[in-house]
């Protein structure tokens, strides 16, 4: 798969954030300031628009450019974290023009790393990481097992969803949610919902 696939992936990511704008707003309104639906739809749109007509074949550069566009468009907490994910994935995949399942596992792993390096949250801190990390682990296992791409994506989406659903067991320690202390525990984390949506879009992109 070449850059055409990556751009399709970005398009699917944009579409799912647009479709779920109100859902994200609703989740973030309970825990935070309610802007997540707006920032994610605006941000992934900006990312997609920045590269959809690119002449570049370098998948790394494309991802980096998408991330930069996103960081400019939506400098909110999640906006900057998602941008950091794309930019780190871009650095890791720099020079690549074709990707396999292993590369895609590496892509999301680098994305996760980028977010983690920027946000300095730990697993279990009730953040985006708790949605994406299980999916990345699943992808890596699938790559090792030489699963089909579609099967790997389906498993990853399922893992992300489980990760998200599990966030209502966790205590928030970052951002606005953290100011609620113990009360935050029973709520679902909006950022982790974004991870779940990302993996759903990834699944769709390989079907």
């Amino acid at each position: 798969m070449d850059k055409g696939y990556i751009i399709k992936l970005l398009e699917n990511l944009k579409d799912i954030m647009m479709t779920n704008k109100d859902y994200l707003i609703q989740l973030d309104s309970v825990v935070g300031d309610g802007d997540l639906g707006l920032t994610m739809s605006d941000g992934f749109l900006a990312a997609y628009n920045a590269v959809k007509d690119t002449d570049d074949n370098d998948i790394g550069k494309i991802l980096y450019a998408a991330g930069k566009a996103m960081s400019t468009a939506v400098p909110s907490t999640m906006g900057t974290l998602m941008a950091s994910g794309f930019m780190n994935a871009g650095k890791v995949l720099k020079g690549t023009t074709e990707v396999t399942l292993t590369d895609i596992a590496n892509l999301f792993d680098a994305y996760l790393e980028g977010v983690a390096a920027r946000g300095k949250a730990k697993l279990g801190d009730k953040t985006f990481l708790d949605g994406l990390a299980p999916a990345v682990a699943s992808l890596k296992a699938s790559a090792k097992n030489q699963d089909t791409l579609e099967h790997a994506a389906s498993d990853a989406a399922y893992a992300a969803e489980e990760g998200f659903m599990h966030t209502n067991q966790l205590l928030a320690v970052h951002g606005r949610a953290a100011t609620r202390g113990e009360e935050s525990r029973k709520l679902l984390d909006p950022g982790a919902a974004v991870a779940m949506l990302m993996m759903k879009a990834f699944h769709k992109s390989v079907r």
Partner: protein
Amino acid sequence: MKKIINKPENYVKEMLEGLYIAHPDLITYTADDLHCLVTANKREGKVGLATGGGSGHLPLFLGYVGKGMLDGCSVGDVFQSPSAEQMLAVTKAIDSGAGVLYIYGNYNGDIFNFDMAAEMADFEENIQVLSVVAGDDVASAGPSAPGEKSTRRGVAGIFFVFKCAGAAADKMLPLEEVKRIAEKAAANVRTMGVALTPCTVPRVGKPGFSIGEDEMEIGMGIHGEAGIRHGKIEPADQITDEMLDKIITDLPYTAGNEVDVLVNGLGATPLDEQYIVTRRISMYLAEKNIKVHRFYVGEYATAIEMAGISISVLKLDAELKALMEAPACTPFFRQ
């Protein structure tokens, strides 16, 4: 929402246009972007000082760009971080080879973006950037363990960090030294506030929270973050004492110390009340044998039109005292 504005979505843009019109001798902007505010009087060879953050806190942050304080400020939407790219544009404009120091408040969005900007400045532009994050609000979290990152929010006390670092940079000290001084100032300032009314983000159009008609919230943050207790309004002296008790014991400030004090109005509180609080602070500190070198009274860091006051105390040593006394000339602060 009782505001003298046009379309809420143009609030920040039009505010910035007004600012550049009023202060052409002191500030301008770069990268063709009103949000990328820089000094009109760049000094070659000087360490560049940049800050940034959401709008809604005037004169914070941009009001301290000028001579003897900051060199640049990236301006976000109301209560929202500016973007890393905007920060980078400011960084490029103010660097003159001596490197750039970022000084900003301890908020997630700002941290992520300033970190990203610092990386970009390094990778893309080869500009050396260091950062100091100010977290002075004793009401927002307990003190952090040694070596641990503070989880305290940055509030009005950042003014002292700007002033000390600004004066240090003005003395043409190198980047590491300016950073050391900014960190020292940040480590020696504590703030606490009290709010009487909420504030309204123009695009939202209604207050983000409410405070009972005869109630106050002690320790509320400058975006309306919950404080440490709310209750019936009390006399000014009692409120002042409660805030000072928290501040004084935190650092701690002890007998024989010399301090600068900032009494800050949060937006809607008249100067009269700020001076009534000043009076009490003076009595309180005198009793504790803590000497006030200087009082700063007025609106230094607001929360749109919130009614309330914050008190910031900076512990001085000879070095910080000399830096606090240095002249400065910015749109909002002259000394």
